[in-house]
């Protein structure tokens, strides 16, 4: 993406200053037990400025709920609703959840209690506790009224750079390729500065999130795991592109550097565990709930051709066991990266060959296996693979072309 010509670059200097002004010195850890909800069930805005913000958010929710970028699978939405019910605290029944088909790792809670979760998040969470942890964290922003506090905090600042930061944050964006409402939210993770929390508010959300998680019986370590996974992904992504991990990845605009936070999270997690109580990550019911969606989640991610990130995700998912789907997508990662110097085509071929050995290999694996065999001159084997593809997928849209490839 041509970042040099983005507004982000123009306002980069200002944004840098803004980031500095928003940050601050390391603070003492916020104690989970101090984090009590500031709102109760059925909460509505009272003050004038908060009402204005709410009304705007109602318009936003109207637009979001009418978007055709939403995934509307009723079982999945209901599953997510259950999670909110588990970790939503007093607002559990008031919160609404929308799932958007956008391959970004992010979730956004709006000041009126609706949250948008992006499908990229669902791809990356290994178990229900991790997902609930993210929801708990976002819910905590709502329960602690962070958005209106941040709004008021921004209002107090007469600093010109706060405005520039707003401009940079909103319109600069991470990759800037998306133009839609929801997608902008995913990549930016901010709604003006409302959602651009400072470290204190992030720490509050962490502390409260961990408490909400543990209260619901989830393993509270899940939250720090999530951050570790994200950092691992970013590191591998940067490594495959031969560069250093960018500090300004969009998630860090809303969740500043995680090292101290991870340490605090670990301590807090230990603190909230009650002796004798059993905590679980609920992995199998999570995998069940997502089983239908996972192939398309992987597809959306892998086809972005960010090989390091995708490889990290596939490896993470494979910790629960390799299968045909994961081997197939591993092949896809190499095929798309297509680096001749690194022998990617051969690796892709091996990936597809490995995939088709599993019973759950998707039909596409057979087609790509056939393509690779054909390119290696193994025509008879290629034909067999293509035949298998057509058998598994008789209405394949590319059947005519595959038949031509079979004919040689």
């Amino acid at each position, binding site marked *: *993406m*041509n970042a040099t*010509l*983005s*507004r982000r670059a*123009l306002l980069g200097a200002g944004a840098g200053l803004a980031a500095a002004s928003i940050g601050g010195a390391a603070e003492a850890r916020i104690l989970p037990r101090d984090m009590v909800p500031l709102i109760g069930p059925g909460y509505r805005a009272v003050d004038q400025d908060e009402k204005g913000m709410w009304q705007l958010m109602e318009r936003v929710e109207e637009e979001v709920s009418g*978007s*055709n*970028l939403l995934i509307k699978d009723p079982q999945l939405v209901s599953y997510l609703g259950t999670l909110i019910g588990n970790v939503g605290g007093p607002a559990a029944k008031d919160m609404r959840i929308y799932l958007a*088909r*956008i*391959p970004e790792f992010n979730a956004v809670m709006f000041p009126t209690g609706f949250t948008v979760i992006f499908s990229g998040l669902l791809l990356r969470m290994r178990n229900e506790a991790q997902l609930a942890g993210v929801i708990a964290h976002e819910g905590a922003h709502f329960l602690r009224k962070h958005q209106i506090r941040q709004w008021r905090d921004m209002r107090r600042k007469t600093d010109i750079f706060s405005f520039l930061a707003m401009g940079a944050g909103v*319109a600069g964006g991470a*990759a*800037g*390729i*998306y*133009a*839609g409402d*929801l*997608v902008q939210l995913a990549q930016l993770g901010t709604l003006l500065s409302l959602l651009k929390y400072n470290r204190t508010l992030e720490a509050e959300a962490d502390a409260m999130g961990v408490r909400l998680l543990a209260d619901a019986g989830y393993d509270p370590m899940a939250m720090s795991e999530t951050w570790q996974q994200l950092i691992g992904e970013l590191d591998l*992504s*940067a490594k495959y*592109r*031969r*560069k250093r991990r960018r500090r300004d990845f969009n998630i860090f605009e809303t969740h500043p550097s995680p090292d101290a936070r991870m340490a605090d999270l670990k301590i807090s997690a230990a603190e909230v565990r009650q002796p004798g109580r059993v905590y679980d990550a609920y992995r199998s019911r999570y995998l069940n709930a997502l089983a239908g969606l996972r192939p398309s989640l992987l597809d*959306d991610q892998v*086809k*972005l*051709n*960010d090989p390091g*990130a995708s490889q990290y995700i596939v490896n993470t998912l494979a910790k629960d066991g390799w299968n045909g789907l994961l081997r197939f997508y591993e092949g896809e990662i190499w*095929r*798309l*990266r*297509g680096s*001749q110097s690194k022998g990617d085509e051969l690796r892709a071929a091996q990936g597809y060959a490995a995939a088709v050995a599993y019973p759950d290999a998707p039909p596409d694996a057979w*087609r*790509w296996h056939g*393509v690779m065999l*054909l*390119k290696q001159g193994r025509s008879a084997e290629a034909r067999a693979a293509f035949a298998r593809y057509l058998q598994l997928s008789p209405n394949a*849209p*590319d059947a*005519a*072309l595959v038949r*031509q*490839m079979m004919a040689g």
Partner: protein
Amino acid sequence: MRFKQLLILAAAVSLPACASGVGGGSFGYSGYSLVRVKEVRVGNDSMAVTPPREWNKIAGSLFVDIHAVEDWTQNGPYLDGISFVTGLKDGKALVYQRRRDDRQVPKFRSNMTPPEIAAMIESLFRVRGGAVDFKTLSMTPRPFLGTNGFQFDYEHLDSDEVRRKGRAVAAVINGRLYMILFDAARSHYYNALLPDYEAIVHSARLV
């Protein structure tokens, strides 16, 4: 290939100024030039086509261009576009990108089969075009420029919530990619302009 967001960025970069009349046009973007109803060379001039009516060529760019690619539009890039790829070499991508970009459009390789070329187009739309959903409608053999090519029909939903539909006809000749790709809003614009696209494809010849 130009996509909608490049124009958005170009517009966003322009600083506000009191303009006499409408829009100073001072983005540095050279705008559009007229394509007349006669045979015209496209891209790196190795292919010639004859449009059945006048089109607008997206001329010049603020951004580093891919010399082998040329874009036309009838109603503007948000609504429709035809892209010509002429003799794209092994190891080149359809768009300008930097080696360090996290997400990249795959490069063309001379030994690519049609499914690989189609997959390259899909990644192009996902990585650069803001497509969140992409569906192959069909892939069939089709003669093109006197050789065995293929036709790729697809649909995608983009992040501006508009559904678009497209068709690409391509062939690899002497290790280079030749392709004519048509992409337009699925509502009205695709069907309205498909006949033009087909006429252009039929008229295409190597020079």
